[in-house]
C-alpha cells in the first residue's frame, strides 16, 4: 500500500484509509473535515489558498461540538464585546489551528468577504485576532460559524491591561531600536571613509564633515533611543543604586560630550560611532527582554481562553446557566459530553469518562461514577453527569494552576548570566579608572583639557565591543548549529544555563514513552468475519483504546472491511456494544477484570470471550541512551509522572534512571522542581503536556517535545522540533561546547583591556592605535567563535 498526501491538509496517510471521490480519483482526503473544507474553498473561489500553503502541512480541520449560539448570550456579550467609537462591536479572539501565513490569509479573506465585517486583523505571531462587526448585519455566532466552517476555531479572551501595556512597550522599544540600528548603520558606513583616511591621509575639512555627519546620526540615538537608560539611571540614583543604565548613559554621554568638544573647536578624534554602538548593542538586548515579557502575556491569554465561561446549575429541578464566580460550594452542576468541568466536585449521578490529560498527562479517559471526585478543567468524554461542587472557582484545581503559572511566567527566576555580571563590574572598574586618570593627570599636569581627553580616552579604548561581542557571536554560532539539528533555543542565554545543570526531570507519558497505546500481547486466533466485526467495533469509537485496536488490526491483517453493525452503543467507561446478525458483539473492558494493572481490551460475541488484548505505552527508541548519557555526565536523572506507582516503577527500572516519583499532580511536580532548586541544584524539566506546564515554568531550563501541547511549548525555553529524546543530549553537548567558547572569548577581551587600558591611562593612545586595537580585539573574538562548530562533522 502506498503513502499519499491529503489534498487539503497535506498530511501523509496510507492510501487505503483515504476518502476517495468517484468523480475525481486524484483527490485524497484523510477525513470528512478536510473534504468539506476543500469543497467549500473550491465553491467560494478560494482555491488559490493551496498555492499559498505551498509545501506546508496543515492540521486536520477542528471538529467543534459546542453550539456557537453561546456567543450571542448576554452574559458573553457583557464580558467580551466592546463598542467602538463608531458604534460597531469589537471582540478579541484567539484563533486555533493556524499553521502558516496561508491560514491567516484564508481566515482574513473569508471574513473580509462576509457582509457586516468591518475589520479583521489576525496576528500571525500570537494568533490573536481583532474583529469589528456591525451587529445590525451579522451576529457574532455567525462569524464564529464562518471560522469553524473552514476548519479553524475561535475563543474569546479578555484584552487585559497587561497585554495593552506589553504591546505598547514592545512598540516603543521597537521604534527606539530601529532608529538606533538605522543611525548606527549609517555611522558605520561613514566610518569606512574616516578610518581609511587615517591610513591614506585626510583633509581636516573633510574630517570635520565626517564628524558632523556622525554627530547628526548619533544625537537621536543618544537622546531618543538611549532615553530609557537615562530614565533607568535616574530611578536607580533615586533609590541609591548605581545600575547598568547609569553606566551605559554615563559612558555614552561622556563620550558624546568629548566628541562635541572635538567637533566644535578642539583637536583630536570624535567617538560618535562609539556612542551609537554602545546604545544600540544594549538596546537590542533590552528589546529581546521586552519580547520575552510580551510572549509571557500572550501565553497566559491562550491559557485563560481555555477556561469554561459558564456552568449549568441544577436549581429546584430546573437548569440555570451561571458564570463561574457565582458557583457556591454544595451547588449541583451538570456537565454534558464534550464540556469541561468548571469547579472541583463529587459525582452524585451518572456514569461517564473524563479526559484528565490537562491534570495528569495521561491520554486515557478515567471512569467516573457516584462518589468519585471530578477536577476542574477535565473534559467529559461520554455521558451527562451531575456533581456537587466541593470548592468554589477561585480555589479549584484549574484556577489554582492558572494563577501559579501566571506568577511563574511573570517572575521566572533565571541564572544571572556571567556576561551581564562581568559587564557590571567591568563598567564600574572602567569608570573608576577613568576618574582616577582624570584627577591624576589634573593634579600632575594642571591642564583640565588634556586630563579630560586622557580620562575619556580610557573609556573609549575600553569600548565594550569585544566584551559585547564575546557572548552574542558565540551564542549565534551555537544556536545556528542547534537549529540545524532541529533544536530550538528561544533565547541565547539558555545555552549558559543548560551547560551548568545538575538534575534533569523527565515526564513519563509522551516524553519517555510515545504516549500512544500499542497492542502488546498476541490474541487468540480469530476468523476473518470475527476480525471484521472487531475492526468495525473499534472503528465506531474514538476512545484511545479503540483507536489503538483499529491501528493494530490495520497493520497486522489485510483485506479487512467494515460490516453493517446495528444498535451501536457506547457503554460509558467500558467499551462499545452492537448487534450483528442477531448476535450481541462487544469490544472493551469487562466489568470484572479489575485485577489487571495494564490496559485490557476484550472481544466477546454473545458473552463468549473470543480474544483478550493487552495494550501498553511503548518506550521511545532513544530513551535508554539519553538517560545513560546524562548519567555519564554525572547529572541526576529523575522520572515524574501522574500515573500509578506500578507503571512508573516499571518504566524507571527499564530506563535505569536515578529516581522516580509516581501519582504526581501538576502542583506536586512544580513543588518537586522547587525543592530540587532549593537544594541548590540547577534543574531541567522535560515535558510535553498541559499538566507539565507549571513544572516547566518553574524549572531553570524547560524543554518541550515538538509534538507536545501548545501551552507546554509556549512556556518552554527549548523545543525539540524533531521530537527525538536524543535531541536533549545533543542540545546539552552543543550548549556545553558553546559555553566553553563564550568563556574563552570573555578572557580574550579582558586580556585586551588589561593590556590597552594602562597604555591609555598613561596618555599614549593615539586615534590610529585605538581604531586598530578595537577592530583587532573584535576580530579575535569572532575568529575564536568560528571554531565552535568545527567539530560538527566529527560529532
Amino acid at each position, binding site marked *: 500500500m502506498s503513502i499519499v498526501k491529503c489534498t487539503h491538509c497535506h498530511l501523509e496517510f496510507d492510501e487505503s484509509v483515504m476518502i476517495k471521490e468517484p468523480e475525481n480519483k486524484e483527490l485524497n482526503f484523510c477525513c470528512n473535515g478536510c473534504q468539506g473544507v476543500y469543497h467549500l474553498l473550491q465553491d467560494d473561489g478560494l482555491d488559490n489558498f493551496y498555492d499559498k500553503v505551498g509545501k506546508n502541512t496543515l492540521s486536520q480541520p477542528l471538529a467543534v461540538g459546542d453550539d456557537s449560539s453561546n456567543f450571542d448570550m448576554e452574559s458573553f456579550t457583557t464580558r467580551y464585546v466592546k463598542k467602538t467609537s463608531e458604534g460597531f462591536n469589537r471582540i478579541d479572539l484567539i484563533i486555533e489551528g493556524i499553521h502558516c*501565513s496561508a491560514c491567516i490569509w484564508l481566515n482574513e479573506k473569508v471574513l473580509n468577504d462576509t457582509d457586516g465585517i468591518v475589520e479583521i486583523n489576525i*496576528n500571525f505571531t500570537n494568533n490573536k485576532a481583532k474583529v469589528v462587526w456591525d451587529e445590525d448585519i451579522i451576529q457574532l455566532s455567525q462569524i464564529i460559524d464562518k471560522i469553524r466552517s473552514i476548519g479553524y476555531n475561535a475563543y474569546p479572551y479578555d484584552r487585559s491591561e497587561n497585554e495593552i501595556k506589553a504591546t505598547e512597550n514592545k*512598540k516603543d522599544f521597537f521604534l527606539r531600536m530601529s532608529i538606533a540600528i538605522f543611525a548606527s548603520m549609517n555611522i558605520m558606513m561613514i566610518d569606512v571613509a574616516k578610518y581609511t583616511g587615517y591610513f591614506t591621509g585626510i583633509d581636516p575639512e573633510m574630517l570635520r564633515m565626517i564628524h558632523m555627519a556622525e554627530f547628526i546620526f548619533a544625537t537621536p540615538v543618544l537622546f531618543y533611543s538611549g532615553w530609557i537608560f537615562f530614565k533607568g539611571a535616574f530611578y536607580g540614583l533615586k533609590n541609591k543604586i548605581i545600575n547598568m543604565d547609569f553606566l551605559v548613559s554615563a559612558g555614552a554621554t561622556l563620550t558624546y560630550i568629548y566628541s562635541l568638544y572635538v567637533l566644535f573647536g578642539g583637536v583630536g578624534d570624535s567617538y560618535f560611532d562609539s556612542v551609537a554602538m554602545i546604545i544600540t548593542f544594549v538596546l537590542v538586548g533590552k528589546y529581546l527582554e521586552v519580547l520575552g515579557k510580551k510572549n509571557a502575556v500572550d501565553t497566559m491569554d491562550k491559557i485563560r481562553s481555555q477556561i469554561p465561561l459558564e456552568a449549568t446549575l441544577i436549581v429546584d429541578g430546573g437548569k440555570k446557566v451561571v458564570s463561574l464566580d457565582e458557583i457556591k460550594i454544595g451547588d449541583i452542576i451538570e456537565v454534558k459530553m464534550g464540556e469541561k468541568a468548571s469547579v472541583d466536585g463529587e459525582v452524585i449521578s451518572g456514569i461517564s469518562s473524563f479526559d484528565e490529560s490537562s491534570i495528569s498527562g495521561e491520554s486515557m479517559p478515567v471512569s467516573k461514577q457516584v462518589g468519585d471526585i471530578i477536577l476542574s478543567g477535565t473534559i467529559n468524554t461520554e455521558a451527562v453527569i451531575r456533581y456537587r461542587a466541593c470548592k468554589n472557582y477561585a480555589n479549584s484545581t484549574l484556577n489554582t494552576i492558572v494563577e501559579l503559572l501566571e506568577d511563574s511566567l511573570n517572575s521566572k527566576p533565571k541564572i544571572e548570566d556571567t556576561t551581564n555580571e562581568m559587564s557590571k563590574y567591568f563598567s564600574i572598574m572602567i569608570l573608576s579608572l577613568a576618574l582616577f586618570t582624570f584627577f591624576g593627570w589634573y593634579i600632575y599636569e594642571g591642564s583640565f583639557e588634556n586630563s579630560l581627553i586622557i580620562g575619556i580616552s580610557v573609556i573609549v579604548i575600553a569600548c565594550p565591543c569585544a566584551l559585547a561581542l564575546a557572548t552574542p557571536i558565540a551564542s549565534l554560532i551555537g544556536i545556528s548549529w542547534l537549529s540545524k539539528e532541529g533544536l530550538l533555543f528561544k533565547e541565547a542565554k539558555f545555552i549558559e544555563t543548560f551547560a551548568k545543570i545538575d538534575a534533569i526531570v523527565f515526564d513519563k507519558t509522551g516524553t519517555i514513552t510515545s504516549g500512544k497505546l500499542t497492542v502488546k500481547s498476541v490474541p487468540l486466533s480469530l476468523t476473518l468475519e470475527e476480525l471484521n466485526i472487531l475492526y468495525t467495533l473499534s472503528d465506531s469509537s474514538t476512545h484511545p483504546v479503540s483507536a489503538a485496536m483499529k491501528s493494530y488490526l490495520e497493520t497486522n491483517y489485510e483485506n479487512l472491511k467494515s460490516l453493517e453493525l446495528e444498535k451501536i452503543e457506547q457503554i460509558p467507561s467500558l467499551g462499545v456494544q452492537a448487534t450483528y446478525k442477531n448476535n450481541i458483539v462487544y469490544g472493551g473492558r469487562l466489568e470484572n477484570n479489575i485485577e489487571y494493572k495494564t490496559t485490557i481490551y476484550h472481544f466477546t460475541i454473545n458473552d463468549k470471550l473470543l480474544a483478550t488484548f493487552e495494550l501498553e505505552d511503548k518506550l521511545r527508541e532513544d530513551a535508554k541512551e539519553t538517560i545513560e548519557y546524562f548519567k555519564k555526565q554525572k547529572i541526576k536523572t529523575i522520572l515524574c509522572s501522574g500515573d500509578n506507582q506500578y507503571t512508573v516503577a516499571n518504566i524507571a527500572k527499564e530506563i535505569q534512571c536515578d529516581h522516580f516519583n509516581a501519582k504526581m499532580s501538576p502542583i506536586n511536580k512544580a513543588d518537586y522542581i522547587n525543592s530540587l532548586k532549593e537544594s541548590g541544584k540547577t534543574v531541567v524539566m522535560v515535558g510535553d503536556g498541559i499538566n507539565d506546564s507549571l513544572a516547566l515554568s518553574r524549572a531553570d531550563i524547560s524543554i518541550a517535545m515538538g509534538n507536545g501541547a501548545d501551552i507546554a511549548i509556549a512556556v518552554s525555553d527549548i523545543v525539540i522540533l524533531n521530537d527525538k529524546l536524543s535531541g536533549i543530549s545533543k542540545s546539552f553537548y552543543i550548549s556545553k561546547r558553546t559555553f566553553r567558547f563564550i568563556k574563552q572569548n570573555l578572557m580574550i577581551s579582558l586580556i585586551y583591556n588589561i593590556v590597552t587600558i594602562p597604555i591609555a591611562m598613561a596618555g599614549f593612545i593615539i586615534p590610529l592605535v585605538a581604531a586598530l586595537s578595537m577592530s583587532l580585539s573584535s576580530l579575535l573574538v569572532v575568529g575564536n567563535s568560528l571554531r565552535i562548530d568545527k567539530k560538527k562533522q566529527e560529532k
Partner: protein
Amino acid sequence: MNSILWVELVIGIIVSFTLLGIFIWGAKQGQFDDGKKMMNGLLNDSTEDLQDAIKKDEKVKELKANKRAKLQKS
C-alpha cells in the same frame, strides 16, 4: 569641491531622515507589530491581494457611512 560635498551631505541626511520618518509613520500605524505577517506579506502579496485591500476599504467606508446615517436618524 568641499562645498559640493557639504551640499551632498545635507541632501543625503535629509533623504535618509525622510525615509526614517516614513518608517516611523508605518511603525506607529502598526505595520510592523506582527513581524511574521510582515515578512510573509513581503514574500507573498500579489496584485490580487492589493485589489482585495482596495475592495475592503470601499466596503468599510460604506459600512461606516451607513452606520453614521443610522445613528443620526435614531
